[in-house]
């Protein structure tokens, strides 16, 4: 428990936006991230998330890829035009090879580094986000790659 308290201190006021068309998953991630001290907003419809998006407000976007009307990649492409600094983590329940080409060719253009895979443990998700935000010591994190797909793999 003391570890959790320490995290809260670290992550205080770091705002995260989750866009996932599955309400149950978006809510579970929100609760899990809030437990770690992040401030989290969620949207289930990318178009509504887009119209409510505030520039320079979020540190990181956690985006599902396969969503109706506007997929996660397209969503982030548009966000980057408004907010150049905002970081991103993509997450998907699809087969990873399905997005292999996108990861190799589109991610570098977007400045995206990782594609996380569902199902993911809340603690692995928290760790990945902290790593992305530079809040975590990289050396402590080598054993968690089984649940994510990175450019170096």
């Amino acid at each position, binding site marked *: 428990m003391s570890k959790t308290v320490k995290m809260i201190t670290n992550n205080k006021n770091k705002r995260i936006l989750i866009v996932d*068309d599955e309400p149950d*998953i978006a809510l579970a991630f929100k*609760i*899990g991230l809030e437990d770690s001290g992040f401030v989290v907003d969620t949207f289930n419809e990318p178009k509504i998330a887009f119209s409510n998006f505030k520039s320079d407000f979020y540190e990181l976007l956690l985006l599902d890829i396969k969503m109706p009307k506007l997929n996660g990649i397209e969503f982030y492409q548009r966000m980057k035009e408004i907010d150049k600094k905002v970081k991103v983590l993509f997450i998907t329940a*699809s087969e990873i090879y*399905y997005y292999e080409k996108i990861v190799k060719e589109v991610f570098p253009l977007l400045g995206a580094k990782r594609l996380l895979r*569902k*199902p993911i*443990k809340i603690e692995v998700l928290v760790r990945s986000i902290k790593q992305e935000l530079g809040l975590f010591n990289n050396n402590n994190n080598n054993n968690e790659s089984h649940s994510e797909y990175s450019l170096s793999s």
Partner: protein
Amino acid sequence: MNKLLQFLSKSKTISSCGDYKTPSLVIEVKDYLEILSKIKKSDIKLRYIVDITKDNVNYCKELIKFADEVRHLDGIKTNFSVSESEYIASSTLSQELYSPEPFQQIIYSNVPDIVEQQKYVFESFWNKAILAEHRVREIEEGVALGMTEVIQIPSKTVEMFVSLIKSAKEEVLLLLPTTNAFFREEKLGIIRYLRDAAVLQGVNVRILTPTNDVITKIIQNMENDKLINFVIQVFEPASDIKVHTVTILVIDKKESLVVEKKDDYKENMVDAIGLATYSTSKPTVISYVTIFESLYNHAKLYEQLKIHGKMQDEFINIASHELRTPTQAVLAYSDLLQNHPEQRDAMIDAIKRNAMRLQRLTEDILDVTKIESKTLKLYKEDLDLSILLSTIVNDYKNNAEGREISDIILLDNEANGKHYIINADTQRITQVVTNLLNNAVKFTEENKECGSISIRLEEVKNADCQEVIINVKDAGTGIDKEILPRLFTKFATKSTKGTGLGLFICKSMVEAHNGKIWAENNKDGKGATFSFSLPFSKYRD
């Protein structure tokens, strides 16, 4: 006769031509037969060309015994013999067939030029003629054995290639070895010509070719999809079909022309080709047809396999997305539950909801597996359809799980209160109706202004059977035009949620009950109606 004897006595080689009457003459006229016997015993070399027909075949068989070699030339109408230094011609045209009269008119010459000319004429005929034994077999066995010819001159091959294609009446099979070969044919106008032949003369044309982007585009531009008798089947290098060396053309399953490729980089066919073999011989032509057909089927199977592989891939991707999504929710809430007792009930509800979703998906995947492996089993019993439908609708409303369900009305007016007895599997019919209701509700929710969903029964009687049609009508968003043609196939969905397996399963279930399923957008432009038919045995008493 004397002239003839003199001619013979000085010759070492004699080359003779005769029409269809000649064989009977030389065998029946005693003097001629004697001459033939002498030749046979002498060192004189005798070559004979005649027209072997059904009527003279027996005489020809006799003639073969006396000559060194006899050949057949269709319809030849000349009678002459030529030796090293002399030429002698006669007439049989006015003579009756088999009349044992010697030749009446004789032309003789020993002028070297004339002799030389006639030798040339004979040699030309000789080269075109086929073996007499071959022709005799053709006649006696009643089969057209045809012949095979090697063509050495590329321009002649090209000429023959074009004229063969133009002569096709029923079928053209064309196998091209390389993409460049396709371009050469295209340049010659062959591909376009063949398409016209298919459209205008109803010739069945099949072309087998390797492809690249340009060829794929050419094929697309020709809009071949609309034609059933013009097919360009492509094969890919990876498909194991390797015919790099020859072009094969088969016309009407009667003639084949096989052209060797010499230099594939040449743009014109004349420069690119080497030797060619033309054949009308049935075994040869049929062999090429078989080669073509097996490569053609191979290419088609490979293509289907690729589509199948792509569909399997798609299935795995959709199925894994659909399996992992509820799994993620179940795992996440199980994790969070202990730290959030205040949200216990909501989290347990979420776990239950997602576990049920997992269960439904598992059932769907199992059903598809059963359908595809043809191991689906039905437990049929006699059921009252009206009672079954009202039970399904009531259960559906009770299990709405808090969702807003539009009114579902069970219309009984057209059935006039009739109770249809169907022999069916309760569980499976419930599955079909529930699935149709789920879709109706889902697409009605998207179009919030619309009204209720109705289920209406309709009776159809014809000579063979009596059927009851169950119509599920909604006033929702209607069926997407893109999806409509493949509505009942696997993965036909535009939604990011769901596997697109539901209607595929419905179709299989209905068909397993000897029924049919179909759907259309409503004529008033609002929503769609899904219908399925089931045979019924009787009305309830």
